[in-house]
């Protein structure tokens, strides 16, 4: 279900206690930027995949209305708050609004404590319905 890019980042899905999927990215050479820290682009990639997974789930929850809908990214704004260290990173998304044509998604990424995010992203998607 996850795209090849998610496999390249070595992402896996954990089920959050509240039913929201959590994407996990291990620390590895392939996601490092400056020595000892995650690349901001890898953190952003993790958050974009988390947003897409959450959005697909939200569309599934719509039943027939969401069936076959395709999503296209319009834009993303990422804030980087802390350096990503040598430990797993998690990301979780909230679909703030799922409309007929547009969805708004907010995502945070953290390492030890979700209350201390290392990055946050706001993404808008176009929904193409059959």
């Amino acid at each position, binding site marked *: 279900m996850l795209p090849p*890019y998610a496999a390249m980042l070595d992402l896996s899905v954990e089920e959050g206690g509240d039913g929201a999927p959590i994407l996990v990215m291990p620390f590895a050479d392939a996601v490092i930027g400056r020595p000892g820290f995650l*690349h901001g*682009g890898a953190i952003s990639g993790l958050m*974009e995949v988390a947003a897409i997974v959450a959005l697909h789930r939200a569309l599934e929850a719509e039943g027939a209305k969401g069936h076959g809908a395709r999503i296209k990214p319009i834009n993303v704004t990422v804030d980087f708050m802390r350096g990503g260290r040598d430990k797993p990173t998690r990301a979780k998304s909230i679909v703030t609004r799922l409309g007929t044509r547009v969805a708004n998604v907010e995502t945070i990424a953290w390492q030890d404590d979700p209350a201390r995010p290392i990055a946050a992203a706001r993404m808008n998607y176009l929904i193409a319905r059959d």
Partner: protein
Amino acid sequence: MAAAFPFDPVRFFGGRFGGHGGRLGIAFREAGPDWVELELPYREDLIGDAASGVLASGPILTMMDMATSAGVWTRLGVFVAHATLDLRVDYLRPATPGKTVIGRGECYRITRAIAFVRGQAHDGDPDDPLAHVAGTFMAPEGYR
């Protein structure tokens, strides 16, 4: 400001480099007084949508983060430790499957602590861009 090293983008990006950028296959193309141009060759393991074969947006964001970051250093002429504060990417159209994506990042203003950047990505025709970015970097010990 911390000890500054002259910044030469050809040497900085020359040859093979490791980390996330190297894993994605990102490479240097050219640089100007306040900009750096990189390229992201099409690779199947970077696909974000298996049905269409379109590249994921993450690798394009990564390239533009690197190009704009290096654009700050070329404008300064020296390497200064800094970090991305924020980055916005507008995805104007999907990248064409099979084509190399080219991204140019420019720094247009540097203050004591913050550098302002913008950039565009295309896949062959600069007049038909596929992404536009705007962002800021912060130097904890200052740019000047």
